[in-house]
């Protein structure tokens, strides 16, 4: 006998093991793809999964296959409309011997292998490259506080949460529907009965009082009985308020990304800065309900720009760092009242500043910017040649030196120098460690 089995409840994901093996095997290539991907990826996109394309090399499965360009071959194709025997047709662009009707069975061409990384897989690889332990994920996940919020009504619940209004509304509807006699109707009958009995009135239709009395007594009996049968409040009328735990929209945060975009910042340096910003953003997104990002770039002038321009536009000129702080303060005043917003500052620069500007810069940061910020980070992006050098040991930049005093005075200000991706996480950790969040 044939059998029908419902297997839907059985575990799926039988292929998870195979998939993990595949991701592990292609790890290097996927990491490369992710690095490449970062260039086109917005800072606010960091949490998405990602479609990655990797070169076929390592995950390619070779076979002995005929060279599609060599040798004579014949193809049978459907859908001829105009050809007659002997017609000549120009070879399709790209060669490949006709239409490729007899391609390889898997349909694999020379193009890259494309697939979708899940968000977790993506973050794993993203953080792995940053040498980030699992901690951000676990720590931040537990953070948000919740608030109990009304979420409709249920038919069951503790007595304290009974909702009287809703319950009565249902009770009334039921009573009307089941035609439960009202108290007023009964009282009217009783009153008439009393008057008939006392002879105060006689039936208007000329019947005898006794007939009418019997009739009313009967009606009253039925009405009273109906009233006991259809109770005033029935268990099915009961409604209870329902509360749901929802994350409290505690706070919102705005992250100011300040970057020196003068010619001295090259693509690699911007890339490093970008990855730092991404990590910070990821952190904030998990901490807050709502996170805004403001990009401010500066040369000798500062302006707010979109992300694309921020990272990819080439602008040259001198360097006046303080202009960026002024722009930031202006935007805060316009759009982000400090009592409603948590402000974060992330400044990336190669450390060059116009000498005359330094005191102004320090003063702004010290007196006006840091006092309104939750945290501030200054990330000095070192040139590739400086890899492995402690910026403090070598020749500290003008800006770095100028910030010395500020770093001493403000516990929520951190400055570090990064030269490669691996440096990013320690800086980040440093920043938030100081803020008293255990790491």
């Amino acid at each position, binding site marked *: 006998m044939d059998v029908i089995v419902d297997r839907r409840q059985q575990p799926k994901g039988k292929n998870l093991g195979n998939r993990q093996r595949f991701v592990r095997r292609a790890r290097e290539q996927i990491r490369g793809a992710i690095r490449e991907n970062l260039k086109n990826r917005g800072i606010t996109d960091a949490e998405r999964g990602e479609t990655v394309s990797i070169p076929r090399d390592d995950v390619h499965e070779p076979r002995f296959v005929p060279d599609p360009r060599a040798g004579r071959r014949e193809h049978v194709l459907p859908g001829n409309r105009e050809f007659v025997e*002997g017609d000549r047709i120009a070879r399709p662009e790209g060669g490949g011997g006709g239409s490729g009707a007899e391609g390889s069975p898997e349909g694999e061409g020379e193009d890259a292998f494309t697939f979708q990384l899940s968000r977790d897989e993506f973050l794993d690889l993203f953080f792995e490259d940053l040498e980030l332990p699992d901690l951000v994920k676990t720590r931040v996940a537990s953070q948000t506080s919740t608030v109990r919020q009304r979420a409709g009504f249920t038919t069951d619940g503790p007595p304290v949460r009974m909702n009287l209004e809703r319950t009565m509304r249902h009770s009334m509807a039921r009573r009307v529907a089941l035609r439960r006699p009202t108290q007023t109707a009964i009282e009217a009958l009783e009153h008439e009965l009393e008057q008939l009995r006392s002879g105060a009135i006689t039936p208007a239709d000329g019947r005898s009082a006794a007939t009418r009395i019997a009739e009313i007594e009967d009606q009253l009996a039925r009405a009273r009985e109906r009233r006991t049968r259809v109770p005033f409040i029935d268990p099915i009328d009961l409604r209870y308020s329902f509360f749901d735990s929802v994350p409290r929209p505690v706070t919102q945060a705005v992250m100011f990304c300040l970057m020196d975009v003068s010619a001295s910042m090259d693509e690699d340096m911007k890339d490093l800065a970008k990855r730092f910003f991404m990590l910070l953003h990821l952190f904030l997104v998990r901490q807050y309900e709502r996170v805004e990002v403001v990009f401010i770039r500066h040369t000798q002038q500062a302006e707010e720009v979109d992300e694309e321009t921020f990272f990819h536009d080439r602008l040259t000129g001198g360097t006046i760092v303080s202009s960026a702080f002024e722009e930031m303060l202006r935007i805060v005043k316009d759009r982000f009242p400090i009592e409603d917003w948590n402000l974060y500052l992330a400044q990336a620069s190669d450390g060059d500043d116009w000498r005359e500007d330094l005191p102004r810069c320090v003063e702004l940061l010290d007196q006006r910017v840091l006092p309104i910020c939750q945290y501030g980070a200054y990330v000095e992006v070192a040139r590739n040649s400086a890899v492995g050098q402690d910026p403090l040991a070598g020749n500290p930049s003008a800006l770095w030196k100028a910030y010395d005093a500020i770093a001493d005075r403000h516990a929520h200000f951190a400055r570090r120098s990064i030269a490669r991706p691996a440096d990013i996480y320690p800086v980040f950790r440093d920043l938030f460690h100081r803020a008293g969040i255990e790491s």
Partner: protein
Amino acid sequence: MSTETLPPKERSGTPLFTSGDWTLKDLEAIHDAVTEVGVGELGLELYRNRIEVISSEQMLDAYASLGLPHMYRHWSFGKHFAHQEMLYRKGQTSLALEMIVNSNPSVCYLMEENNATAQTTVLAHAAMGHNHFFRNNQTFQEWTDADTILDYAEFVRNYVARCEDEYGQKAVERTLDAAHALQEQGIDRLSPAHRRTVEEEHQRVLERRRYQRETELELWRVVAHHEPPTGPGDTDDEALQRSLTLPEENLLLFLEKQAPNLKPWQRELLRIVRTLSTYFEPQRQTKMMNEGCACWCHFTIMSRLREQGRLTDGAMLEFMHLHSSVVAQPPFDHRGFSGINPYALGFAICQDIERICNEPDEEDREWFPDFAGNGAPLATLKRAWSDFRDESFVRQFLSPRVIRDFRLFRLDDDPGAEYLTVGAIHDERGYRRVRSALAAQYDPGESRPLIEVTDADLRGSRELRIRHTVRRGRTLDALEARRTLRHLGFLWGYPVVLDEVDETSGKTVATHREDPA
């Protein structure tokens, strides 16, 4: 051949379902109705069916493990899974509505997303059509053992897992990678080896272990007693060579038996890949027929259910829509063209056979004198389904009418010429040429490279020579060949050389060499 009579048309039945929703109980009723027609009226001969309702994720799983309920772990299955999943999630492809395993009982997967009409179609298609084909087609009969495959697959999964525990995932993966690269050269083409039962398979593995231990002991004994090692002298070389029975077309088999350095478990892995490759081979060789058979069955069964009044108008319309999208054949210059659709061609030929049996015209009588007008379409179809594979099926049954309907034409590609030439079209002069070209396209002997082991120097350099016979100038893709050769070299353990030899002139046109590090 006897004439067949089907019961008269009556439309008194009650519909099997009236909405798209179904319960397991409905499925049972649907299955019974479908079986009644399939087995009762059409006389299909089936393995028992094991029908499994699964979710789309589970279908993706089944895809990636090639349909077998059990499969060993390997990254390449994960790769295909990842790719399929992405295509599916992005809506670039839909999942097949069904999947069925060539086994006894045959496992037939139904996806929960299918509505009642689709489930009915799927049952008629897979549980009737494919099942009958698996059970009766000679290629399957000769090459696969439906009774043992499920047990074997489970044995394989456990065996590979044990190997990973014992020898490390990396080592197992390396060997499987190499074996996979050669799997098309691991099919027992000429004489499918005697297949052992799982019990015997276990026995053999134990035996191999015992042998391994004993040879190790032997080594100890010899060393301990300082006896001179005794081995075959040089004079045995010739006998040894002969015992290799060269040339050998089955590369995996040759390596399993002769590769000098492989561990017993590695030989076992080669054997596994070889066995599975052989198991899947008939599916490759009969894809078009198999789908044709299944499509003809679902079409006939659904029409019959409609006649019995067991399908509503709505369900029938829905079915027609489903059916026509499955058997659509876009023309070669259409964006959606990806070769000849096996469902379309297979179904068209089967329907055409039915027509030729019942209402032949002059042309049909001339082309198919042995069955035109015999009034026995079912028997004719069943014979076709059992005795042929795609290549011979096309050669025997592709009619001028189908060639015209598909507007088939032959395109000749000579790399020396500046143009492609239309070699034949759907006209009097062209029918036979189109037909034979299409048959050749389905012929694995024609379309796959012929590669053989020709020489193995087992005493000296231990160099292994293999030969590719180049037909009509079709050399191998050089890069792919070198990559594959690297895998072969890994298994052999010593230098391997691939000569590409032209079939007619006997000249070597290319040589690839690989020295394992």
